[in-house]
Protein backbone atom coordinates (compact mmCIF):
# COMPACT_ATOMS: atom_id res chain seq x y z
CA UNK A 1 0.00 0.00 0.00
CA UNK A 2 1.28 3.45 -0.86
CA UNK A 3 1.73 6.27 1.64
CA UNK A 4 -1.37 8.33 2.40
CA UNK A 5 -1.82 11.69 0.68
CA UNK A 6 -2.36 13.39 4.02
CA UNK A 7 -1.27 12.03 7.33
CA UNK A 8 -1.80 13.74 10.64
CA UNK A 9 0.26 12.17 13.39
CA UNK A 10 -0.25 12.95 17.08
CA UNK A 11 -1.07 16.58 16.44
CA UNK A 12 -1.84 18.95 19.28
CA UNK A 13 -2.87 22.58 18.91
CA UNK A 14 -3.59 25.33 21.37
CA UNK A 15 -5.50 28.59 21.50
CA UNK A 16 -3.50 30.40 24.14
CA UNK A 17 -3.38 27.98 27.05
CA UNK A 18 -6.41 26.00 25.95
CA UNK A 19 -5.76 22.71 24.18
CA UNK A 20 -8.05 22.42 21.18
CA UNK A 21 -6.44 19.28 19.72
CA UNK A 22 -5.04 16.69 22.12
CA UNK A 23 -3.14 14.28 19.91
CA UNK A 24 -5.00 13.63 16.69
CA UNK A 25 -4.19 10.91 14.15
CA UNK A 26 -5.93 10.97 10.79
CA UNK A 27 -4.95 9.73 7.35
CA UNK A 28 -6.50 10.45 3.98
CA UNK A 29 -5.58 8.29 0.97
CA UNK A 30 -5.60 9.48 -2.58
CA UNK A 31 -9.04 9.22 -4.17
CA UNK A 32 -10.90 8.88 -0.87
CA UNK A 33 -13.64 10.89 0.74
CA UNK A 34 -12.90 10.92 4.45
CA UNK A 35 -15.16 12.63 6.92
CA UNK A 36 -14.65 13.92 10.41
CA UNK A 37 -17.78 14.26 12.49
CA UNK A 38 -18.30 15.56 15.98
CA UNK A 39 -20.23 18.03 18.07
CA UNK A 40 -19.86 21.76 18.01
CA UNK A 41 -16.57 22.77 19.62
CA UNK A 42 -14.97 19.33 19.36
CA UNK A 43 -12.01 20.80 17.47
CA UNK A 44 -12.93 19.84 13.92
CA UNK A 45 -12.43 23.28 12.40
CA UNK A 46 -9.28 23.76 14.42
CA UNK A 47 -7.89 20.62 12.81
CA UNK A 48 -8.74 21.99 9.36
CA UNK A 49 -6.91 25.22 10.10
CA UNK A 50 -4.00 23.41 11.76
CA UNK A 51 -3.44 21.47 8.55
CA UNK A 52 -2.90 24.91 7.00
CA UNK A 53 -0.59 26.01 9.78
CA UNK A 54 -2.94 28.53 11.36
CA UNK A 55 -2.55 27.81 14.25
CA UNK A 56 0.53 25.61 13.83
CA UNK A 57 0.58 22.25 15.53
CA UNK A 58 2.52 22.28 18.79
CA UNK A 59 3.38 18.57 18.80
CA UNK A 60 3.16 15.87 16.21
CA UNK A 61 3.47 16.31 12.49
CA UNK A 62 1.42 16.75 9.35
CA UNK A 63 2.66 15.21 6.12
CA UNK A 64 1.10 16.07 2.79
CA UNK A 65 2.17 14.30 -0.36
CA UNK A 66 5.39 13.14 1.26
CA UNK A 67 6.35 16.56 2.63
CA UNK A 68 6.31 17.58 6.25
CA UNK A 69 4.19 20.76 6.27
CA UNK A 70 3.90 21.17 10.03
CA UNK A 71 6.04 24.32 10.09
CA UNK A 72 5.34 25.63 6.60
CA UNK A 73 3.63 29.07 6.38
CA UNK A 74 -0.06 29.02 5.46
CA UNK A 75 0.33 30.62 2.02
CA UNK A 76 3.04 28.15 1.02
CA UNK A 77 0.82 25.23 2.01
CA UNK A 78 -1.92 26.70 -0.20
CA UNK A 79 0.53 26.66 -3.10
CA UNK A 80 1.05 22.90 -2.70
CA UNK A 81 -2.32 22.09 -4.23
CA UNK A 82 -4.11 21.81 -0.95
CA UNK A 83 -7.31 23.84 -0.90
CA UNK A 84 -9.91 24.63 1.70
CA UNK A 85 -13.48 25.77 1.73
CA UNK A 86 -13.40 26.98 5.30
CA UNK A 87 -15.86 27.24 8.13
CA UNK A 88 -18.26 30.11 7.54
CA UNK A 89 -17.41 30.02 3.80
CA UNK A 90 -15.38 33.24 3.97
CA UNK A 91 -16.33 34.46 0.53
CA UNK A 92 -14.77 37.89 -0.10
CA UNK A 93 -17.85 40.06 0.41
CA UNK A 94 -16.78 43.07 -1.65
CA UNK A 95 -15.38 41.16 -4.59
CA UNK A 96 -17.49 39.88 -7.42
CA UNK A 97 -18.11 36.18 -7.88
CA UNK A 98 -15.66 36.25 -10.77
CA UNK A 99 -12.97 37.94 -8.67
CA UNK A 100 -13.49 35.41 -5.91
CA UNK A 101 -12.87 32.64 -8.42
CA UNK A 102 -9.80 34.44 -9.74
CA UNK A 103 -8.45 34.52 -6.19
CA UNK A 104 -8.74 30.73 -6.18
CA UNK A 105 -6.86 30.42 -9.44
CA UNK A 106 -3.98 32.63 -8.32
CA UNK A 107 -1.85 29.69 -7.10
CA UNK A 108 -1.97 28.13 -10.56
CA UNK A 109 -0.79 31.44 -12.07
CA UNK A 110 -4.05 31.32 -14.06
CA UNK A 111 -2.63 28.51 -16.20
CA UNK A 112 -5.97 26.77 -16.81
CA UNK A 113 -8.15 29.71 -15.88
CA UNK A 114 -10.60 29.84 -18.79
CA UNK A 115 -11.08 26.11 -18.89
CA UNK A 116 -11.56 25.83 -15.11
CA UNK A 117 -13.96 28.76 -15.04
CA UNK A 118 -16.15 27.07 -17.64
CA UNK A 119 -16.04 23.88 -15.63
CA UNK A 120 -17.13 25.68 -12.42
CA UNK A 121 -19.97 27.38 -14.25
CA UNK A 122 -21.06 24.00 -15.58
CA UNK A 123 -21.05 22.46 -12.10
CA UNK A 124 -22.66 25.49 -10.43
CA UNK A 125 -24.78 27.29 -13.05
CA UNK A 126 -26.00 29.70 -10.38
CA UNK A 127 -22.51 31.18 -10.14
CA UNK A 128 -22.58 31.99 -13.83
CA UNK A 129 -25.81 33.94 -13.41
CA UNK A 130 -24.27 35.81 -10.49
CA UNK A 131 -20.79 36.26 -11.98
CA UNK A 132 -20.63 40.03 -11.66
CA UNK A 133 -22.47 40.23 -8.35
CA UNK A 134 -20.59 40.88 -5.12
CA UNK A 135 -19.92 37.88 -2.89
CA UNK A 136 -21.59 39.52 0.09
CA UNK A 137 -24.92 39.77 -1.72
CA UNK A 138 -25.21 36.04 -2.43
CA UNK A 139 -27.48 33.70 -0.48
CA UNK A 140 -25.90 31.23 1.92
CA UNK A 141 -26.16 28.36 -0.55
CA UNK A 142 -24.65 30.39 -3.36
CA UNK A 143 -21.82 31.48 -1.08
CA UNK A 144 -21.13 27.85 -0.24
CA UNK A 145 -21.02 26.95 -3.93
CA UNK A 146 -18.68 29.86 -4.51
CA UNK A 147 -16.40 28.83 -1.65
CA UNK A 148 -16.15 25.30 -3.06
CA UNK A 149 -15.68 26.52 -6.63
CA UNK A 150 -13.01 28.97 -5.48
CA UNK A 151 -11.15 26.10 -3.80
CA UNK A 152 -11.50 23.93 -6.92
CA UNK A 153 -10.08 26.69 -9.14
CA UNK A 154 -6.66 25.89 -7.68
CA UNK A 155 -6.91 22.32 -9.04
CA UNK A 156 -6.28 20.84 -5.60
CA UNK A 157 -5.01 17.33 -4.98
CA UNK A 158 -6.84 17.44 -1.68
CA UNK A 159 -9.94 19.47 -0.91
CA UNK A 160 -10.75 20.31 2.69
CA UNK A 161 -14.41 21.07 3.22
CA UNK A 162 -15.50 22.54 6.52
CA UNK A 163 -19.22 22.17 7.22
CA UNK A 164 -20.55 22.83 3.75
CA UNK A 165 -24.08 22.06 4.97
CA UNK A 166 -24.15 24.61 7.77
CA UNK A 167 -27.22 26.82 7.68
CA UNK A 168 -28.38 25.60 4.27
CA UNK A 169 -31.74 24.28 3.16
CA UNK A 170 -31.84 20.45 2.91
CA UNK A 171 -32.29 20.58 -0.85
CA UNK A 172 -29.14 22.65 -1.31
CA UNK A 173 -27.22 20.39 1.05
CA UNK A 174 -28.22 17.43 -1.08
CA UNK A 175 -27.11 19.25 -4.20
CA UNK A 176 -23.72 20.14 -2.74
CA UNK A 177 -23.12 16.62 -1.46
CA UNK A 178 -23.96 15.14 -4.83
CA UNK A 179 -21.47 17.51 -6.46
CA UNK A 180 -18.79 16.29 -4.09
CA UNK A 181 -19.65 12.66 -4.82
CA UNK A 182 -19.57 13.30 -8.57
CA UNK A 183 -16.19 15.06 -8.44
CA UNK A 184 -14.77 12.20 -6.42
CA UNK A 185 -16.21 9.54 -8.72
CA UNK A 186 -15.38 11.09 -12.08
CA UNK A 187 -12.14 12.93 -11.35
CA UNK A 188 -10.83 11.07 -8.35
CA UNK A 189 -10.83 14.22 -6.25
CA UNK A 190 -9.67 13.50 -2.71
CA UNK A 191 -11.86 15.12 -0.07
CA UNK A 192 -11.52 15.58 3.65
CA UNK A 193 -14.92 16.65 4.92
CA UNK A 194 -15.78 18.05 8.33
CA UNK A 195 -19.46 17.83 9.20
CA UNK A 196 -21.97 18.10 11.99
CA UNK A 197 -24.53 16.60 9.67
CA UNK A 198 -23.29 13.11 10.49
CA UNK A 199 -25.87 11.15 8.57
CA UNK A 200 -25.19 12.73 5.19
CA UNK A 201 -21.47 12.85 5.74
CA UNK A 202 -21.12 9.20 6.71
CA UNK A 203 -23.31 8.11 3.84
CA UNK A 204 -21.10 10.00 1.44
CA UNK A 205 -17.69 9.10 2.84
CA UNK A 206 -15.55 6.01 2.36
CA UNK A 207 -14.19 6.35 5.86
CA UNK A 208 -14.98 8.46 8.87
CA UNK A 209 -13.58 9.65 12.17
CA UNK A 210 -15.47 10.81 15.23
CA UNK A 211 -13.96 13.61 17.28
CA UNK A 212 -14.84 14.39 20.88
CA UNK A 213 -13.09 17.12 22.84
CA UNK A 214 -10.01 17.33 20.66
CA UNK A 215 -9.50 13.56 20.38
CA UNK A 216 -10.46 10.94 17.83
CA UNK A 217 -12.67 8.45 19.64
CA UNK A 218 -13.84 6.26 16.79
CA UNK A 219 -12.93 5.53 13.22
CA UNK A 220 -13.99 3.17 10.48
CA UNK A 221 -15.84 2.86 7.19
CA UNK A 222 -18.63 5.34 6.58
CA UNK A 223 -21.45 2.78 6.51
CA UNK A 224 -19.92 0.92 9.42
CA UNK A 225 -19.88 4.03 11.63
CA UNK A 226 -23.42 4.78 10.62
CA UNK A 227 -24.48 1.46 12.17
CA UNK A 228 -22.55 1.93 15.41
CA UNK A 229 -24.75 2.37 18.44
CA UNK A 230 -22.61 5.11 20.03
CA UNK A 231 -22.62 7.14 16.82
CA UNK A 232 -26.36 6.77 16.38
CA UNK A 233 -27.02 7.78 19.97
CA UNK A 234 -24.75 10.79 19.93
CA UNK A 235 -25.11 12.18 16.44
CA UNK A 236 -28.17 10.73 14.80
CA UNK A 237 -30.76 11.19 17.50
CA UNK A 238 -34.21 11.73 16.12
CA UNK A 239 -32.66 10.03 13.11
CA UNK A 240 -33.39 11.39 9.70
CA UNK A 241 -33.63 8.12 7.84
Amino acid at each position, binding site marked *: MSAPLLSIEGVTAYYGAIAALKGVDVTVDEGEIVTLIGANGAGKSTLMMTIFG*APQARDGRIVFDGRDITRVPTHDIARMKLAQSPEGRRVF*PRMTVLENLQMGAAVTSYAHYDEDLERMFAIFPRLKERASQRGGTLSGGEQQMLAIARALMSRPRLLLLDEPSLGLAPLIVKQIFSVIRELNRTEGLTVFLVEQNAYHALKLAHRGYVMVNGRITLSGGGRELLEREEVRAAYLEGGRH
Partner: protein
Amino acid sequence: MEYFLQQLINGVTLGSIYGLIAIGYTMVYGIIGMINFAHGDVFMVGAFLALIVYLALVAIGITFVPLALLIVLLVAMALTALYGWTVERIAYRPLRGSFRLAPLISAIGMSIFLQNFVQQAQGARVKPLQPVAPGGFQFGAADGFVVNVSYVQLMIVGATIAIMTGFTLLVTKTSLGRAQRACEQDRKMAALLGVDVDRTISLTFVMGAALASVAGLMYLLYYGVIDFYIGFVAGVKAFTAAVLGGIGSLPGAMLGGLLIGLIETFWSAYFSVEYKDVAAFSILAIVLIFLPSGLLGRPEVEKV
Protein backbone atom coordinates in the same frame (compact mmCIF):
# COMPACT_ATOMS: atom_id res chain seq x y z
CA MET B 1 -15.72 84.93 -12.52
CA GLU B 2 -12.03 85.01 -13.37
CA TYR B 3 -11.22 85.21 -9.69
CA PHE B 4 -13.37 82.17 -9.07
CA LEU B 5 -11.68 80.26 -11.90
CA GLN B 6 -8.28 81.16 -10.58
CA GLN B 7 -9.17 79.86 -7.13
CA LEU B 8 -10.66 76.73 -8.64
CA ILE B 9 -7.36 76.00 -10.37
CA ASN B 10 -5.39 76.68 -7.21
CA GLY B 11 -7.74 74.50 -5.20
CA VAL B 12 -7.53 71.58 -7.60
CA THR B 13 -3.74 71.76 -7.51
CA LEU B 14 -3.63 71.70 -3.74
CA GLY B 15 -6.30 69.01 -3.68
CA SER B 16 -4.19 66.80 -5.97
CA ILE B 17 -1.34 66.90 -3.49
CA TYR B 18 -3.61 66.08 -0.55
CA GLY B 19 -5.29 63.33 -2.52
CA LEU B 20 -1.99 61.60 -3.30
CA ILE B 21 -1.02 61.61 0.37
CA ALA B 22 -4.51 60.57 1.47
CA ILE B 23 -4.29 57.37 -0.59
CA GLY B 24 -1.43 56.19 1.59
CA TYR B 25 -3.48 56.67 4.75
CA THR B 26 -6.55 55.02 3.36
CA MET B 27 -4.76 51.98 1.88
CA VAL B 28 -2.87 51.20 5.04
CA TYR B 29 -6.02 51.66 7.09
CA GLY B 30 -7.88 49.38 4.70
CA ILE B 31 -5.40 46.55 4.95
CA ILE B 32 -4.31 46.59 8.59
CA GLY B 33 -6.88 48.87 10.21
CA MET B 34 -4.27 51.25 11.51
CA ILE B 35 -3.70 54.97 11.01
CA ASN B 36 -0.11 55.35 9.90
CA PHE B 37 0.71 58.60 11.67
CA ALA B 38 4.20 58.57 10.19
CA HIS B 39 2.81 58.80 6.65
CA GLY B 40 2.88 62.63 6.61
CA ASP B 41 6.54 62.46 7.54
CA VAL B 42 7.23 59.94 4.82
CA PHE B 43 5.79 62.56 2.46
CA MET B 44 8.19 65.11 3.98
CA VAL B 45 11.11 62.73 3.50
CA GLY B 46 9.95 62.32 -0.10
CA ALA B 47 10.09 66.10 -0.61
CA PHE B 48 13.61 66.25 0.82
CA LEU B 49 14.80 63.34 -1.29
CA ALA B 50 13.36 65.05 -4.36
CA LEU B 51 15.21 68.25 -3.54
CA ILE B 52 18.48 66.44 -2.89
CA VAL B 53 18.26 64.41 -6.08
CA TYR B 54 17.36 67.50 -8.09
CA LEU B 55 20.30 69.48 -6.74
CA ALA B 56 22.60 66.54 -7.37
CA LEU B 57 21.42 66.35 -10.97
CA VAL B 58 22.01 70.06 -11.44
CA ALA B 59 25.45 69.66 -9.92
CA ILE B 60 26.41 66.99 -12.45
CA GLY B 61 25.05 69.11 -15.26
CA ILE B 62 21.67 67.62 -16.08
CA THR B 63 19.65 70.79 -16.42
CA PHE B 64 17.12 69.82 -19.09
CA VAL B 65 14.05 70.24 -16.89
CA PRO B 66 11.68 67.48 -18.10
CA LEU B 67 14.45 64.89 -17.98
CA ALA B 68 15.67 66.08 -14.59
CA LEU B 69 12.16 66.00 -13.14
CA LEU B 70 11.53 62.53 -14.48
CA ILE B 71 14.73 61.23 -12.91
CA VAL B 72 13.90 63.02 -9.66
CA LEU B 73 10.43 61.51 -9.66
CA LEU B 74 11.67 57.96 -10.19
CA VAL B 75 14.59 58.14 -7.77
CA ALA B 76 12.53 59.87 -5.08
CA MET B 77 9.75 57.32 -5.47
CA ALA B 78 12.17 54.43 -5.14
CA LEU B 79 13.98 55.83 -2.12
CA THR B 80 10.82 56.95 -0.33
CA ALA B 81 9.28 53.56 -0.98
CA LEU B 82 12.29 52.09 0.77
CA TYR B 83 11.56 54.34 3.75
CA GLY B 84 7.92 53.21 3.76
CA TRP B 85 8.99 49.57 3.63
CA THR B 86 11.50 50.04 6.44
CA VAL B 87 9.03 51.87 8.67
CA GLU B 88 6.56 49.00 8.34
CA ARG B 89 9.24 46.41 8.91
CA ILE B 90 10.75 47.84 12.05
CA ALA B 91 7.90 49.79 13.64
CA TYR B 92 4.69 47.93 12.78
CA ARG B 93 5.29 44.34 11.78
CA PRO B 94 6.78 43.27 15.12
CA LEU B 95 3.65 44.63 16.79
CA ARG B 96 1.17 42.84 14.59
CA GLY B 97 -1.11 40.76 16.75
CA SER B 98 -0.41 42.80 19.85
CA PHE B 99 -3.05 45.15 21.27
CA ARG B 100 -4.63 47.64 18.93
CA LEU B 101 -3.04 50.80 20.25
CA ALA B 102 0.53 49.52 20.14
CA PRO B 103 1.21 50.13 16.42
CA LEU B 104 -0.52 53.52 16.69
CA ILE B 105 1.85 54.61 19.42
CA SER B 106 4.74 53.19 17.45
CA ALA B 107 3.57 55.23 14.44
CA ILE B 108 3.61 58.45 16.45
CA GLY B 109 7.12 57.56 17.61
CA MET B 110 8.17 56.92 14.01
CA SER B 111 6.73 60.28 13.01
CA ILE B 112 8.73 62.10 15.68
CA PHE B 113 11.82 60.13 14.74
CA LEU B 114 11.58 61.01 11.05
CA GLN B 115 11.04 64.71 11.82
CA ASN B 116 14.00 64.83 14.15
CA PHE B 117 16.14 62.78 11.82
CA VAL B 118 15.57 65.22 8.94
CA GLN B 119 15.96 68.19 11.25
CA GLN B 120 19.33 66.86 12.42
CA ALA B 121 20.52 65.72 9.02
CA GLN B 122 19.30 68.67 6.96
CA GLY B 123 19.04 71.49 9.48
CA ALA B 124 15.94 73.19 10.83
CA ARG B 125 15.86 76.09 8.40
CA VAL B 126 13.62 76.12 5.35
CA LYS B 127 15.16 74.81 2.15
CA PRO B 128 14.36 76.84 -0.94
CA LEU B 129 14.34 75.70 -4.54
CA GLN B 130 14.54 78.17 -7.41
CA PRO B 131 11.49 77.90 -9.68
CA VAL B 132 12.21 74.96 -11.94
CA ALA B 133 9.56 75.63 -14.55
CA PRO B 134 8.53 79.28 -14.30
CA GLY B 135 5.76 80.74 -16.42
CA GLY B 136 2.49 79.37 -17.61
CA PHE B 137 -0.65 80.19 -19.54
CA GLN B 138 -2.76 83.26 -19.04
CA PHE B 139 -6.40 83.70 -19.90
CA GLY B 140 -8.82 86.60 -19.95
CA ALA B 141 -6.24 89.38 -19.89
CA ALA B 142 -8.61 91.60 -21.90
CA ASP B 143 -11.19 92.34 -19.20
CA GLY B 144 -8.71 93.23 -16.54
CA PHE B 145 -8.38 90.13 -14.40
CA VAL B 146 -5.93 87.50 -15.49
CA VAL B 147 -6.29 83.79 -14.80
CA ASN B 148 -2.88 82.19 -14.41
CA VAL B 149 -2.28 78.51 -14.92
CA SER B 150 1.36 77.84 -14.27
CA TYR B 151 3.26 74.99 -15.90
CA VAL B 152 3.80 73.55 -12.46
CA GLN B 153 0.07 73.51 -11.75
CA LEU B 154 -0.61 71.79 -15.05
CA MET B 155 2.11 69.29 -14.32
CA ILE B 156 0.73 68.57 -10.86
CA VAL B 157 -2.85 68.06 -11.98
CA GLY B 158 -1.82 66.09 -15.08
CA ALA B 159 0.53 63.82 -13.18
CA THR B 160 -2.05 63.27 -10.45
CA ILE B 161 -4.70 62.23 -12.94
CA ALA B 162 -2.28 59.89 -14.71
CA ILE B 163 -1.00 58.34 -11.49
CA MET B 164 -4.43 57.90 -9.97
CA THR B 165 -5.75 56.30 -13.15
CA GLY B 166 -2.85 53.89 -13.25
CA PHE B 167 -3.19 53.18 -9.60
CA THR B 168 -6.91 52.50 -9.82
CA LEU B 169 -6.28 50.04 -12.64
CA LEU B 170 -3.59 48.37 -10.58
CA VAL B 171 -5.91 47.85 -7.63
CA THR B 172 -9.02 46.84 -9.56
CA LYS B 173 -7.63 44.79 -12.45
CA THR B 174 -4.37 43.11 -11.54
CA SER B 175 -3.64 40.00 -9.55
CA LEU B 176 -1.63 42.08 -7.10
CA GLY B 177 -4.51 44.49 -6.53
CA ARG B 178 -6.86 41.58 -6.01
CA ALA B 179 -4.51 40.07 -3.44
CA GLN B 180 -4.44 43.42 -1.71
CA ARG B 181 -8.21 43.69 -1.57
CA ALA B 182 -8.42 40.09 -0.42
CA CYS B 183 -6.12 40.87 2.52
CA GLU B 184 -8.24 43.89 3.27
CA GLN B 185 -11.46 41.87 3.40
CA ASP B 186 -10.28 38.65 5.01
CA ARG B 187 -6.60 38.19 5.74
CA LYS B 188 -6.91 34.61 6.92
CA MET B 189 -8.80 33.53 3.82
CA ALA B 190 -6.29 35.31 1.61
CA ALA B 191 -3.53 33.23 3.19
CA LEU B 192 -5.56 30.05 2.61
CA LEU B 193 -5.55 30.96 -1.09
CA GLY B 194 -1.79 31.33 -1.23
CA VAL B 195 -1.47 35.08 -0.72
CA ASP B 196 1.63 36.02 1.25
CA VAL B 197 -0.06 38.45 3.62
CA ASP B 198 3.10 40.00 5.08
CA ARG B 199 4.47 40.67 1.64
CA THR B 200 1.20 42.22 0.50
CA ILE B 201 1.14 44.52 3.53
CA SER B 202 4.73 45.55 2.82
CA LEU B 203 3.78 46.33 -0.77
CA THR B 204 0.91 48.48 0.44
CA PHE B 205 3.32 50.59 2.47
CA VAL B 206 5.68 50.77 -0.48
CA MET B 207 2.93 51.98 -2.79
CA GLY B 208 1.62 54.51 -0.28
CA ALA B 209 5.12 55.89 0.26
CA ALA B 210 5.80 56.11 -3.47
CA LEU B 211 2.62 58.13 -3.98
CA ALA B 212 3.53 60.34 -1.01
CA SER B 213 6.91 61.06 -2.58
CA VAL B 214 5.19 62.18 -5.77
CA ALA B 215 3.17 64.55 -3.60
CA GLY B 216 6.41 65.63 -1.93
CA LEU B 217 7.98 66.52 -5.27
CA MET B 218 4.84 68.44 -6.25
CA TYR B 219 4.81 70.32 -2.98
CA LEU B 220 8.44 71.26 -3.52
CA LEU B 221 7.79 72.52 -7.04
CA TYR B 222 4.60 74.34 -6.08
CA TYR B 223 5.72 76.14 -2.93
CA GLY B 224 9.46 76.25 -3.58
CA VAL B 225 10.34 75.82 0.10
CA ILE B 226 10.27 72.82 2.40
CA ASP B 227 11.27 72.11 5.97
CA PHE B 228 11.21 69.16 8.31
CA TYR B 229 7.78 70.14 9.62
CA ILE B 230 5.71 70.14 6.39
CA GLY B 231 4.80 66.51 6.91
CA PHE B 232 2.82 67.24 10.03
CA VAL B 233 0.51 69.87 8.56
CA ALA B 234 0.06 68.19 5.19
CA GLY B 235 -0.31 64.84 6.93
CA VAL B 236 -3.14 66.06 9.13
CA LYS B 237 -4.88 67.58 6.11
CA ALA B 238 -4.49 64.46 4.02
CA PHE B 239 -5.68 62.32 6.89
CA THR B 240 -8.71 64.60 7.17
CA ALA B 241 -9.24 64.14 3.45
CA ALA B 242 -9.14 60.36 3.82
CA VAL B 243 -11.68 60.45 6.65
CA LEU B 244 -13.90 62.90 4.78
CA GLY B 245 -13.96 60.66 1.71
CA GLY B 246 -14.45 57.55 3.82
CA ILE B 247 -11.37 55.91 5.27
CA GLY B 248 -10.54 52.67 3.48
CA SER B 249 -12.00 53.88 0.19
CA LEU B 250 -9.61 54.80 -2.62
CA PRO B 251 -11.99 56.99 -4.65
CA GLY B 252 -12.96 58.50 -1.30
CA ALA B 253 -9.37 59.53 -0.60
CA MET B 254 -9.07 61.17 -4.00
CA LEU B 255 -12.39 62.97 -3.61
CA GLY B 256 -11.64 63.98 -0.03
CA GLY B 257 -8.25 65.39 -1.04
CA LEU B 258 -9.81 67.42 -3.79
CA LEU B 259 -12.53 68.75 -1.49
CA ILE B 260 -10.15 69.73 1.30
CA GLY B 261 -7.95 71.52 -1.25
CA LEU B 262 -10.92 73.39 -2.68
CA ILE B 263 -12.44 74.28 0.69
CA GLU B 264 -9.15 75.62 1.95
CA THR B 265 -8.46 77.66 -1.17
CA PHE B 266 -11.93 79.14 -1.50
CA TRP B 267 -12.13 79.96 2.16
CA SER B 268 -8.81 81.79 1.98
CA ALA B 269 -9.90 83.60 -1.16
CA TYR B 270 -13.31 84.77 -0.04
CA PHE B 271 -13.04 84.91 3.75
CA SER B 272 -9.79 84.81 5.61
CA VAL B 273 -6.53 82.95 5.30
CA GLU B 274 -6.25 82.63 9.06
CA TYR B 275 -9.34 80.45 9.37
CA LYS B 276 -8.80 78.16 6.39
CA ASP B 277 -7.93 75.19 8.57
CA VAL B 278 -10.93 75.83 10.77
CA ALA B 279 -13.10 75.77 7.66
CA ALA B 280 -11.65 72.47 6.44
CA PHE B 281 -12.01 70.77 9.79
CA SER B 282 -15.49 72.20 10.39
CA ILE B 283 -16.71 70.71 7.15
CA LEU B 284 -15.17 67.42 8.14
CA ALA B 285 -17.05 67.55 11.45
CA ILE B 286 -20.33 68.39 9.76
CA VAL B 287 -19.99 65.63 7.18
CA LEU B 288 -19.15 63.08 9.83
CA ILE B 289 -22.24 63.99 11.85
CA PHE B 290 -24.48 63.12 8.93
CA LEU B 291 -22.33 60.49 7.20
CA PRO B 292 -20.24 58.84 9.93
CA SER B 293 -18.41 56.63 7.45
CA GLY B 294 -17.46 59.53 5.17
CA LEU B 295 -18.68 60.46 1.73
CA LEU B 296 -17.81 57.23 -0.09
CA GLY B 297 -17.04 54.98 2.86
CA ARG B 298 -19.04 51.86 3.42
CA PRO B 299 -21.12 51.47 6.54
CA GLU B 300 -19.68 49.19 9.20
CA VAL B 301 -22.55 46.71 9.06
CA GLU B 302 -22.87 44.50 6.03
CA LYS B 303 -24.83 41.48 4.99
CA VAL B 304 -22.96 38.31 5.74
